[in-house]
């Protein structure tokens, strides 16, 4: 049972964060220097993420979440 609460908490956390974000000061275009860096991209190493997703897709019962597409595999 506590696991369900943990899941609910973690699932709702981003919504709370996003709601809070509305009250935050907007980041101006000229303040995006750090966000524009490669290391601040949502996926700075797409090849590595692709390989990891493939490994875990073939070794676990869960998959997806980060995006759509990418291709099938007979490994699972």
């Amino acid at each position, binding site marked *: 049972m506590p696991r369900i609460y943990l899941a609910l908490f973690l699932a709702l956390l981003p919504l709370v964060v996003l709601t809070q974000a509305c009250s935050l000061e907007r980041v101006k275009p000229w303040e995006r220097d750090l966000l524009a860096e490669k290391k601040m991209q949502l996926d700075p190493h797409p090849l590595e993420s692709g390989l990891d997703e493939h490994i875990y897709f073939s070794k676990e019962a869960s998959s997806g979440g980060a995006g759509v597409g990418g291709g099938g595999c007979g490994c*699972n």
Partner: protein
Amino acid sequence: MQLKKSLHAKKTTPVKKPLQGKKPLHVKKPKSISGALATATCALLGTHLPHPAAASEPFKNWEYDSALLYYSEQDRVTAVEPVISARNDMGNDQFLNFKFVVDALSGASANGAVPADKTQTFSGPSGQKSYSVAPNETPLDPTFEDTRFAANVLWEKPTSRYLKALLGANFSTETDYTSLGVSATFTYDANNKNTTLSAGASFSHDTVSPIGGAPDPFTEVPTSSTSGGENEGDDDGEGGEGEGGETKNVTDLLFGVTQVLSRHTLTQFNYSIGQSSGYLTDPYKLLTVVDPVTGDLVPAVDPNNTYRYLHERRPDSRTRQSVYWKTNHQFTDDVVYLTYRYYWDDWDVKSHTVDLRYRYELGRHHYLQPHARYYQQTAANFYRYYLVDGEPLPQYASADYRLGDMTTTTFGLLYGAELGKNSEFTFRAEYMKQSNQGYPADAIGKLRDYNLSPDVKAIILQASYNVKF
């Protein structure tokens, strides 16, 4: 007046440049003057000067990404996986991405049977190679070998100032499996680009052509090359059936929002729902039928076989859902990446995944990135360690450990170095361990003495090189 102004502007720009640059003034000057003169002439004639790089533009602005992955499980599967991707900046924020992957696999994998105090013999999927498993050992099929080729193309195209489309197609093929898919994702920038909404859909049509034909579910597994021929052949009851084998359709939908929280923080939240339908059974996995009292192997019904093992059977549809949350936060220089996913499906698999990476800057051009991942899943409602002789068959059953209660932990370290302005090298080493409930409380007889689902341990090594022209 305007013409005069434009002439002046075109003339001054090239002359100014060499003065700022490091090259000697006389090297650049004649070219610049001729260029300026040509521009001036065109301006006077009212024609447009072609962009100097226009002719070769499609071959310029390429970014290449390559990686070589080595994955090795202790006593089981080994995979070598080279990947290359190329991304072309077509201008106007349009990009074309190509990706090719080769996945060479070999080694042994668990066939689903339980250990026993006798030698167990199985025939390989082709019916040709048979293999024996020593007493008290976990049955692993050592005949597993395959090479997968996958190609992916993705076109990123802005359709308006705020809207962008990402259209993709992918194809992959291996000995017994082919997949063909398309995907489309649209992103919409709002709130001064501080919020991005995304919606994506993908569809893939896969063909499964098991070696020796798809076995009928819950039929007896032949244990030697001369037995059980009548059980093999195209399945006529399960999933979709195509001319070249069984088929499977996979549809996925994703809705997401990405929010800039501050100059240092970015967060993303996605909800995904997907459905797989058709042949979802693993044609190579089987279940042992055991004695209800002793837990011992029972003799096969077919006199040509030794003991009784049945082919597994899974439902022909699966609905998957997940919520995914990712946050990147940059400290002074270091960056922390935190991801959490909650996944659930109608096979009753529920899972939590937490992934944490910390990029620690060693200096201006290189960094270390420790990585920890924790994954925990509940078993599918038809997961069984074995079937019991004399009991009625369940509707579905699989002894594939990947559908059981399981925990995966991964620890790794990545080293990255920027080699010049436009290239980067990374190397990572990781250790992965999968732990299952190997000793179920309700195990029968002798089976209590065996670990019915031993840990799987693997190492992952990867070297990558990225270069931009």
